[in-house]
């Protein structure tokens, strides 16, 4: 099966809009899970799109462009991976396996877009010296072009030659490599988790990390992720109330309450592992 003209144009426009969403409102269009779902919807296999998108989403949870760093383009990866999985009819795991190298390959397009914008910055700098505020405004808006084209072009080309690409992949990639990529897709969410662990103060609040793990691992049947989040919220709320009370009662600094029972009144419990 090859891709319809409508789906091709829809997905090309979609990734352009999604990039603008990532830069501004962050409604969600930019996230791999939306990308996979949109692809699945327009190509008539929502389930495959959702699974490919969700797996890539989990892998990249902690990966964000902190301070303008460039990260692999897993949105385009998710769109193309889902599309190739649906075209070939070989299932979500196949799509995930393809999406990873695609996302890595497209990393360079982000750098190219950010470099191109330097041209508009230089224009704007010159116009500012003349006091031309309208010109400055205009040059900021020109930035839309590199941002969107850097996503739309590779997705259009990739999907246009999609069925040929899929055939070539199937002919050339050995079975063990595809099995390996599929397994990599299963364990890849560990990356998103590990980055979040690096970013959050795990050394200070590690008991809550253990609590979440235990609830979910041992009580799989009675707990969902949302349920665990609510338990986490309870402890967070208790902590904030406690800290505020402490702040109002005296100048002593806020104290962490790193106890599973959450109601201990230990003073100055600082845990550093």
């Amino acid at each position: 099966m090859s891709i319809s003209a409508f789906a091709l144009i829809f997905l090309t426009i979609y990734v352009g809009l999604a990039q603008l969403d990532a830069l501004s409102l962050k409604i969600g269009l930019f996230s791999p899970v939306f990308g996979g779902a949109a692809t699945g919807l327009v190509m008539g296999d929502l389930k495959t799109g959702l699974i490919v998108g969700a797996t890539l989403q989990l892998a990249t949870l902690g990966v964000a462009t902190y301070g303008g760093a460039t990260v692999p383009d897993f949105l385009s990866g998710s769109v193309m991976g889902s599309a190739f999985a649906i075209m070939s009819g070989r299932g979500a795991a196949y799509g995930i396996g393809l999406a990873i190298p695609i996302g890595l390959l497209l990393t360079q397009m982000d750098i190219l877009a950010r470099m191109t914008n330097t041209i508009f910055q230089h224009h704007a700098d010159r116009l500012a010296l003349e006091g031309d505020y309208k010109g400055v405004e205009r040059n900021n808006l020109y930035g839309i072009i590199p941002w969107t084209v850097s996503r739309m072009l590779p997705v259009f080309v990739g999907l246009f030659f999609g069925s040929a690409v899929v055939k070539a992949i199937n002919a050339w990639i050995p079975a063990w490599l595809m099995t390996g990529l599929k397994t990599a897709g299963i364990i890849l969410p560990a990356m998103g988790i590990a980055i979040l662990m690096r970013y959050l103060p795990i050394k200070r609040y590690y008991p809550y990390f253990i609590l979440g793990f235990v609830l979910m691992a041992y009580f799989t049947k009675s707990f969902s992720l949302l349920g665990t989040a609510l338990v986490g919220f309870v402890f967070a709320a208790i902590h904030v109330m406690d800290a505020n009370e402490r702040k109002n009662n005296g100048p002593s600094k806020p104290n962490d309450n790193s106890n599973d029972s959450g109601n201990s009144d230990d003073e100055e419990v600082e845990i550093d592992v």
Partner: protein
Amino acid sequence: MSDLKLNKLTKKDLKHIFIQNVLGLQLGWNYEKMQGLGYAYSVMPALKRLYKDDPAKMKQALNMEMGFFNTTPQMAHLIVGADVALQDQLGMNDENEKAIAGLKTGLMGPFAGVGDTIFVAIYNAIIYSITAYLALSNQPIGLLIPVVGCLAILWVRWKLFQVGLAQGTRLATTFADSMAIFTEGASILGLTVVGAMIPAVINYKLDLTYKVGKVTMNVQSMLDKIMPALIPLAIALFSYWILGRKHMNSTRLIFVLILIGMVLGNLGAIFGWIGSLV
């Protein structure tokens, strides 16, 4: 907003500043001044109102506002608010130019530290993990969660803008205090979810059996007796550890995980090959 006393800026100006800030801050992002161009775009409605008929001041303001700038977009509203409120009250002169430039560069760093933790790391950990978890079980309804989250964040961003407008330069110290406690609470919630995600989303099961006499043993069910989700936990902790090593970043970690996947995915074949050698 009623208690806010601005001289020249109208309510409409403030709305325009907020919208241009949300939509335009990062459009011109470049390696030279990062959000500098977008920042100038964000405050443009204020500059137009204040210096439209004064080319000298307009030039001075434009050059100052287009300096290097980079922070978490959600936090930028605080700085933009303080910036335009100060210019509304004091106008533009050499002294005020220095004061505002100092405010911008002084606040963008600390605000990015807090903002990246709250609006990026913790927000993504909670919102997108639940969405992806639902999507994995074929429930597209979860896609609504980020949309609702976005609306809530938009409200927070508008409030931060108000705080910036009202507080001016004082916001640096007073706001950072209450923010610290909030960040601690949010970290607790985030870590609970992160811990739960390991068994929830890393669905790897060892597909390996071996024979002792006539009994076939399944390695995974033996591991489950020690602790459920032992291998996912091990992979997550290993990834956490290796990310802390020198010369390691998330893109390189992908290659490490692909390599582990290659080995785990072909375990049966690898053991078969070793067996044939013995």
